[in-house]
C-alpha cells in the first residue's frame, strides 16, 4: 500500500578511531516528507547526514536511498549522489567559477548534458532561487544568503530525489536567513523530500512533518514539531529545547 521510503538507514554506526559518533541510528524518510533534525553540537547530526550520501563511510549498518544500496560495492556512488542533493553550512561554492558555472558543472560532467542544455537547466535553477540576474557573478560578489541560494540551485539542478541540509542558515547574518528559508519552503511546497539539520524552530513548526532530537549518537526522541517542541517526553530533549528557546 505505502510507497517505498526514499531513505532507509538502519543500525548506523560510525566510529572515528576510538570516538563512537553514531551508535545505532535508524532513519526512514518517506517520499515528500520533511524531517527536521536537532541536537547539541557534536551529537552526530552532520555525521548522520554525511552517511546518507556516503561522504562519510558508515562503520556498520545499511543505507538505502531511492531503492539503491549505498554501501554495496557495485553501486555507482557518483551516479547515486546526483540523486541526493546536499547543502552545507559554509555554502562551499567554487570561488573560481560564476554562479552559473557552479550550477552547471555536475550537469555537464556527471549528468552528461551539453553546455547549452546545462546552461538552460542552470538558469532555470538560478531563477527558482531568485538569482537569475546573478548568473555571471562569482561567489565573492554575492552575499552569504545569495551564495547559499546558489548552492541550493547547484543541488536542485540535478533533480535530486532528496535534499540534505546541514545547518544551511547558521553561517548567515540574521537578515539573510529569511531568503534562504523562503527558498526551502518553496522546495518543500513543490514536494521535495528533505532532511534538515537546523535550529530554525519557526521553520520547523511551519514546514516539518517530523522532528528528531539527537544526542550523543542516538535519536533520543521524535514526533511532530508540536510534540517535540512543546511536550517533549525525554529530559534531555526538554533541556535542549529550553536552551535554544532562551536564545
Amino acid at each position, binding site marked *: 500500500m505505502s510507497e517505498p521510503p526514499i531513505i532507509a538507514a538502519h543500525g548506523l554506526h560510525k566510529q572515528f578511531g576510538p570516538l563512537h559518533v553514531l551508535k545505532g541510528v535508524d532513519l526512514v524518510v518517506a517520499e515528500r516528507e520533511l524531517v527536521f533534525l536537532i541536537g547539541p553540537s557534536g551529537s552526530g547530526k552532520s555525521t548522520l547526514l554525511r552517511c546518507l550520501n556516503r561522504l562519510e563511510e558508515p562503520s556498520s549498518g545499511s543505507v538505502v536511498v531511492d531503492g539503491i544500496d549505498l554501501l554495496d560495492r557495485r553501486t555507482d556512488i557518483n551516479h547515486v549522489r546526483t540523486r541526493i542533493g*546536499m547543502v552545507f553550512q559554509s555554502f562551499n561554492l*567554487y570561488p573560481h567559477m560564476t554562479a552559473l558555472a557552479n550550477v552547471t558543472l555536475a550537469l555537464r560532467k556527471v549528468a552528461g548534458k551539453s553546455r547549452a542544455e546545462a546552461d538552460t537547466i542552470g538558469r532555470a535553477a538560478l531563477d527558482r532561487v531568485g538569482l537569475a540576474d546573478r548568473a555571471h557573478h*562569482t561567489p565573492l560578489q554575492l552575499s552569504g544568503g545569495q551564495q547559499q541560494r546558489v548552492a541550493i540551485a547547484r543541488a536542485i539542478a540535478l533533480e535530486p530525489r532528496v535534499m540534505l541540509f546541514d545547518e544551511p542558515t547558521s553561517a548567515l547574518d540574521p537578515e539573510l536567513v529569511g531568503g534562504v528559508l523562503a527558498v526551502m519552503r518553496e522546495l518543500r511546497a513543490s514536494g521535495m523530500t528533505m532532511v534538515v539539520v537546523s535550529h530554525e524552530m519557526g521553520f520547523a513548526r511551519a514546514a516539518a512533518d517530523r522532528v528528531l532530537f539527537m544526542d550523543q549518537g542516538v535519536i533520543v526522541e521524535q514526533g511532530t514539531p508540536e510534540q517535540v517542541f512543546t511536550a517533549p517526553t525525554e529530559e534531555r530533549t526538554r533541556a535542549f529545547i529550553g536552551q535554544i528557546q532562551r536564545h
Partner: protein
Amino acid sequence: MSAWDRFTDAFFNVPIMLKYLPSIAQGFVLTVELAVLVVITGIAAGLGVAMLRSLGLRPLNWAIVFVVDLFRALPPLVIIVLIYFGLPSAGVSPSAFGATWASLALELMAFSEEIFWAGITAVPRGQWEAARSTGLSFGQTLRAVVLPQALRLTVPPLTNRTIAITKGTALGSVIGLAEILSQASSGESLSFNPSPLTLGAAAYLLLFLPVVALGRWIETKFAWKR
C-alpha cells in the same frame, strides 16, 4: 692606456665578441632547449606526483616524501656529477645534456611537487565535499574544482623556483656541456680576454629577463577576481 680603456678592452672588445658570437649563439640555442625541456618535464612530473599524493595512499605518500626530500636536499651539481660520472660504472653512459637535464628536472620535480601539494592542501575540504556530493569523481573534482584553485596559489612560488632552477643549466659547463657559460669561458681562455664572458652574461639576460617578466605577468593575471 687609461683605466677606462683597459676596462672596455677587457670586457667590451668588439672584434673578440664578434669572433665568439657564433659559438655563444650556439650555446644560447642549446641552453634554451635544455631550459624548456627542464621546465616542461620538471613541472609536469611535479604536478603528476602531487596528484598521486592527493590519492592519500599511505605507503605511496611515504615514498613520495622520501624521494622529494632527497632531491630537495641534494645540490644539483652533485646529482649531475653522480649521473654523469657514476652511471657509466653501471653500464649506462648519459650524455652531458642528458645528465644536466635529468638533474635539473628531478630538482624541479621535487620542489614543484611540494609547491603543488601545498596548493592542493590549502583548498578547503568543503570544496571536495561539495563537488563529490554532486557526483563528481575524485579525478573530476581534482581537475575542475581543486587544481584551478590550487594553481592560483602556486603560481608565484612556482615561478620563482622555476627561474632559480633553470639558471642551473650553467652547471652543465662542469661536465663539458656546450651551453652558454661553457662557450663563453672557452672563448675567454682562447682569446685571453673576458669579453666573451660579457657576451655570455648578455645571452643569459636575453634568455631570463623575458622569463622573469612573463612570471610577473602570470602573477597579476592569476589574482582573484572580486
